[in-house]
Each structure stands twice: as structure tokens, then as C-alpha cells.
């Protein structure tokens, strides 16, 4: 289980994440929604240990990410919103490199790397340098690399950005399959349709605070909307007056 305890991140003039408390259960697919600049990426970065919180902590299976980073990080796989990778390595080299980062080596790893390249339709580019890949290909490679050590928890920041419809369909299938295997997925997204389709629970974050939490149905109740889709709930909770302001 991932426990987020009173997590806060303050920059000089900004409270990016403000006292967030949240528990993500094992086998759950949790979506984090929020407008641009709401603090989603900062929150995810603190969960995976990329950023140090100003206060609070993240506990992964009983291990603190700040106090026991090495053992807790073994359980995580992270996919950032932008696929920055080593451009001078080939796709296959990159996957093996990432496996080595997680202390995995040997023939089995190369086999697994090739399987993942196949899964993400990158086999034909396995021995080409990544600098020649398109944005979507790099994004798929990062997905493959995050799965190479078969993490228990997958943390994904904006998974659908840069993917073509085929890639999105594939990703949805992978998420469903991982869930079946008991893996936990935490993703931040702007794609409300996908969030509604896939998620067990949804959290809405705005101005660094978690303002709503629950299943799609529970969120409808919190927003006081009957039968609306997630978009109307989201707008109601985050930009209540947006439509009126725009006079549309």
C-alpha cells in the first residue's frame, strides 16, 4: 500500500502541494486529476523520491521513501510526463541499462527486454539509437523500461501524452492486465474519459490540495451532479464559474 501522510511541498513563493493525505490500496488503479499547475506532477515526484517534501512522508509497504529510499524504490516503476532518455543508446541497450539499475542482469533480462520491445512495437528499432526515435516511440520505450523490473507499484505521469490511438489502446490493455495481476497503478491524467473508464478511484487536486476523492459515483455525489460525466464533475469542483466567466 502507498500511504501519503501530510505531504507538503513549498517553493519560495508557492505551496505546490498542501498537506495531502491519501492511501492507495494494493491492486487499485488510482487516477489523479487536476487543472494545469495543480500540483499533480510535484506530488508524483515526491512519491517516487525525485523530490524531497518540505514536510510529511510517503510510506510504501511500510518503508519511508525519505528514510529508506533504496528499499522502497525497488517496489516502484515511474513514467514521467516527458520521455527524457539517453539518446546515444539503442532501445535495447536502454532497457538493459534500466534493468541493471534495478540490479537485474543476465540472459533473462535481454529476453525480457526483447519481449517488451515487441509488446510496444519497437522491435524493428531495437538496435537504432534513440535519438532517431519519434516522441511517441520514446514514450513507449519509457513505458517498457518502467516495466522491465516488474514493479509492484507503477506511477505514471500523463500516460497518454504523445501516444497515437494504437498506443493508447495498447496502454489501456496493459493497465487492465497489470491490475488483474494485482499490481497497483497511480496515474495523473488530463484524459477524463480514460480516467473514468479505468480507475477504481479518482482524486481531484487543485492548488496543491486534494479537494475530492472517491469513485466516479462518489465524486458525482460530492459535486452534487446527477448523471453527469467526469468532465462536468471536474469543472464543477475545480472551475465552478469557468463556463459563466467565459460567457459561453
Amino acid at each position, binding site marked *: 500500500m502507498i500511504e501519503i501522510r501530510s505531504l507538503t511541498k513549498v517553493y519560495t513563493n508557492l505551496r505546490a502541494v498542501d498537506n495531502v493525505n491519501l492511501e492507495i490500496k494494493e491492486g487499485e488503479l488510482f487516477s489523479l486529476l487536476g487543472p494545469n499547475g495543480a500540483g499533480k506532477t510535484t506530488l508524483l515526484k515526491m512519491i517516487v523520491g*525525485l523530490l524531497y517534501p518540505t514536510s510529511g512522508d510517503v510510506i510504501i509497504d511500510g518503508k519511508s521513501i525519505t528514510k529508506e*529510499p533504496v528499499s522502497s524504490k525497488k517496489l*516502484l516503476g515511474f513514467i514521467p510526463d516527458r520521455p*527524457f532518455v539517453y539518446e*546515444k543508446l539503442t532501445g*535495447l*541497450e536502454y532497457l538493459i541499462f534500466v534493468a*541493471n*539499475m534495478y540490479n537485474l542482469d543476465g540472459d533473462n533480462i535481454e529476453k525480457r527486454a526483447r519481449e517488451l520491445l515487441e509488446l510496444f512495437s519497437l522491435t524493428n528499432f531495437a538496435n537504432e539509437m534513440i535519438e532517431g526515435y519519434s516522441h511517441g516511440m520514446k514514450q513507449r520505450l519509457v513505458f517498457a*523500461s518502467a516495466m522491465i523490473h516488474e514493479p509492484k507499484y507503477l506511477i505514471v505521469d500523463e500516460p497518454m501524452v504523445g501516444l497515437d490511438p494504437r498506443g493508447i489502446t495498447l496502454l489501456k490493455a496493459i493497465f487492465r492486465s497489470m491490475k488483474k495481476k494485482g499490481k497497483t497503478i497511480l496515474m495523473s491524467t488530463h484524459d477524463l474519459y480514460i480516467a473514468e473508464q479505468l480507475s477504481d478511484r479518482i482524486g481531484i487536486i487543485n492548488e496543491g490540495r486534494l479537494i475530492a476523492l472517491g469513485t466516479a459515483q462518489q465524486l458525482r455525489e460530492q459535486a452534487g451532479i446527477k448523471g453527469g460525466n467526469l468532465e462536468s464533475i471536474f469543472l464543477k469542483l475545480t472551475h465552478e464559474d469557468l463556463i459563466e466567466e467565459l460567457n459561453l
Partner: protein
Amino acid sequence: MRKLFNPALLSFRRTLFASKKNRVKLVGLFLMAAGFFSVEYLFIAKMLIYFSKTELIGYLLIEKMLYMANFIFFFMLVFSNIITSISTYYTADDIPLLLSAPITLEEFFYSRFIQTMIKSSWMIVLFGLPIYIAYGTILHGGIVYYLSMVASLGFFVLIASSTGIILTIIATYILPARRFREFMLFISIIVFIGIYIGFRIIRPERFLNPRSFENVVGYLATLHSSQSLLLPSTWFSSTLMACISHSYLDGIHMFLPLISTAMGITATGVFTTYMFYMNGFTKAQESKNANLGRKGVFYKWLNILTNRSSLFVKAIIKKDVLSFFRDASQWSQLLLLGALILVYVYNFTALPLKNIPFPTIYLKNIVAFFNLGLAAFVITAIATRFAFPSVSLEGRVLWLIKVSPNDLSELIRAKVLYNLIPLLVVASALVFFTNHVLGVFNFIMYLSLITMLLLTTAITNMGVGFGAIYPKYHYENVADISMGFGGLIFMVASLGLTMIVLVIEAIPTYKLMKAFTFSLGLNFYDYVWISLLYLLSVSIISYSTMYVKAKAIKTIKITEG
């Protein structure tokens, strides 16, 4: 046209004045530059005063020195512009934006030209200015000298920049696809041959050793021998020397080719851009297959070399080695390193030690000991190019390292190991070779090698450490990473450490050397304090290494990945 410079100007201004920390850095940088400037000026001035007092050949030596300095500067400027223009004209992030904007290729050429010229020339110009000013003040150049210095230096730099950029544009057009590696090799070989031939033509060692000439007339004739009139460095030097000797008409004669070539070659740059740039740029977008594949001999060697390291360290080293040899902007810097070592060793073999009229064995050992300082300087220069940028080279992929279940000290260890092996090889080879040439005592040989080994380890650790403390994760050109406040701080710290260690070791070494040379005995107390002083130098090296490493790890931890 001005609009094209605005983004660069604004971001430069914001970087400088954005925070108090940056302003402090700016002041620090200014003070350091002023310090360096003053030391270089004093050194050159002292040398000029000494030469100007030497009858007959003094003025000729002064003239020759300026020709040599400018000849080297010219080649350095051209090479530096070639390297910079690859990124400013072909790989910079804003190129697609500029090329899609409604501007002419001429405007594009000039906007990039000025950026390239400033980026690749400021350091060499800064290095040259104290020399030119010293010539003006010591040799009473007068106001005309300074005015002509500013003007002719400007045109001199302009010619070098245009030459470098034109060479890049043509070579990128001729060579297929994204073959910067081959292109760089091609250019580097040309530059190398140029420098080598230049050195052989000038043969600077002869001027230090007049006895090698058959007679005085021969020596003077060599000093008098004219420089190639086709080289911009000759025009520049001759303009300056003419102004010093108040022969203004001669000065104008040399200034005219400088100005006309500068204008002509800049126009040629525009013409070259129209002719070749777009085709070359299009070719540069093609992808390429990776060399040095995982199944090759190279990879197997890497496995053997890193056999005893942890998997994480091994992976980082392998990745860095592969990236290094696949990235021309990284490996091409090896050629600069090669040139540095070549000049160093060449100068050493040319030392006129055989002709010195007093006990040479004593002097040779002293020279060998202080040569450690020079060797450490070379190692610092190499470490600035390679060890310092190594953490920054993780670039925007630092996130991957930070989310992986590994201690960050392992990252520093990997980077140190990766740099240390080649640096140790170079350092020991330099010390061994120069000591061998000098024919020093065995004791001095061992002491030099051990001290160099410890210093190289410390310099490498400090290079990697300072690089992590002052990182530049978003860079356009690898060479830019070390060219900032952090790079300067590292160089000062490294040279400071070298100086402290050498000063501490000089006392016991002198005592031991005296005992060896004159067969003097040493008592128990002598041995105790000699050991204590050596121990002190080892402790200082270890402490500085560990301090920088700890600070580096702390900085990476709080860096947003």
C-alpha cells in the same frame, strides 16, 4: 534582425541577475577573471621587460613571441568555432523555430554567427588581452596602438569565426547524413596537421638555445625570418608591432588585408549558407545505427574492466563509454587533450638543461618535483573537460537515476571511476616520461608518481564533485558545461590543492634530496617529521576529496529530477 538576438540576450540577463546567488557568482567570476588577468599581465610584462633589456635580439624575440601567440590563437579560434557552430547552426533546440520563421537565410546566418563568435571566442580573447595590453604598456605603444589593437583584434576574431563556420557548413553538406563524427575527425586532423606544421615551421625551442645555431648571424636570420603573409595572425601581429614602433604606414599595410578579408569572408559565409546550409541541415536530421554494439569486442573489454564493480556502477560506466564514443561533441575534445599533451611533452624535451653550467642532477630533481605542479595543471585542464561535466551529462535523464533504488554515492563512484582510469594513465605517463627525460633519482621518481597518483585521484573526485555542485543539466554543447562559474571554481580549488600539497611536500623532499645528493645522514627525528609532513599532505588530499563528494551527493539529492 535585433529580435533574433533578444531571446539569447534576455535569458543571459535573467541568468545573471535573477537571484542574489547569481549576482554573487557574477562578482566572484569577475574577481577571478580580474585576478587571472592581472597575473597573466604581470608575467608577460616581466618577460617583456627582461627581453627588452637584451641587446640585439630582445626586440626580435618580443616580435616572435607575438607572432607565435597569435598563430596559436588563430587555430584555437577556428577549432573552437567549428565545435560551437555544430550546435548553434545544426543541433540547437531553437533552430526549427528560426527556420520556420519568416526570416531570410542571411538574417539566420548573422544571428547564429554572432552567438557562435561570442561563445567560442570570449575565453581566448580574455586570455589574449593581457598579452596585448602588456605589449602596449611595456613597449610604449601609445593611444594609436590601443585603438588599432581593438579594431584589428575584432577583425582577427571575425576571420577565425567565419572560417570555422564556413568549414562546418561545407563539411556538413559534403559528408552524408548525421556523420558529425567523421566530420570532426576530418576537421581535427586538419587542425592537428596545421598546428604540427606550424610548430615545426617556428621551432620555438631554437630561440631559447642560441648555441644550436651555427653562428650568431644564423640565429639572427632565423629570428628575422618573416612569417607567412597569407595568415591573418601575421597581419594582426604585424599591425600591432608596427604601431608599437610607430611605423603607422606599415601598420595600415597590414591592417588593410585584415579588414578586407574579414568583410570578404563574412560575405562568403552568407553565400555558403545560401548554397549549402539547407541541404546540410536536412541531411543532419537523418537517424543512424549505433556503432560499438553490445556483442562487440569493445563491450567485452568494458565488461572485464568493470568486472569488480556493482551492477549499477558497471551500467553507468558502460552507458557513459558508449555515449562518449557515439557523441562527436564529446570525443572530439580528446583531440584538444592530445594537443595539450603534445605541446607539454614537446616543450619538455626542448628544455635546455644540458647546457646549464652548474650541478644539473640537483637542478633536474628540483625541476622534476615542480614539474608535478605543471602535470597537475594539465590533469586539471583535462578533468575540467571530462570529469567536471560528467554528472551534468546525465542531463534530463537524471530522473531515472534518482528513481532507481541506488545510493547516489554510487553514481559519484561510477563517474569518478570512469574518469580516473584514463586520467591516471595520462598523469603517470606524463610524470614518468618527463622524469625519465630528466634522469632523476629513483626516490624522486617514486615520490612524483605517488604524489601524482594521489593528486589525480583527488582532482578527479573534485572534478566530478564540483560538476555535481554546479551542474548544467540543460546544455546545448558539452563544452559549455565546464565554461562557467563552477568550472572556474573547480580549477581554482584543484590548483590550490596542488599548490598546498607541493608546498608541504617541498620541505621534506628538499631535505631528502640534499641527503641523497651529498650523502648526508638523517636522524630519527628527521624521519618522524618528514613522515608527518607527507602524512599531512595525504590527509589534506583525502579530506578535500571527501568534503567535495559529500557536498555533491547532497546537491544531487535536492536537485529536482
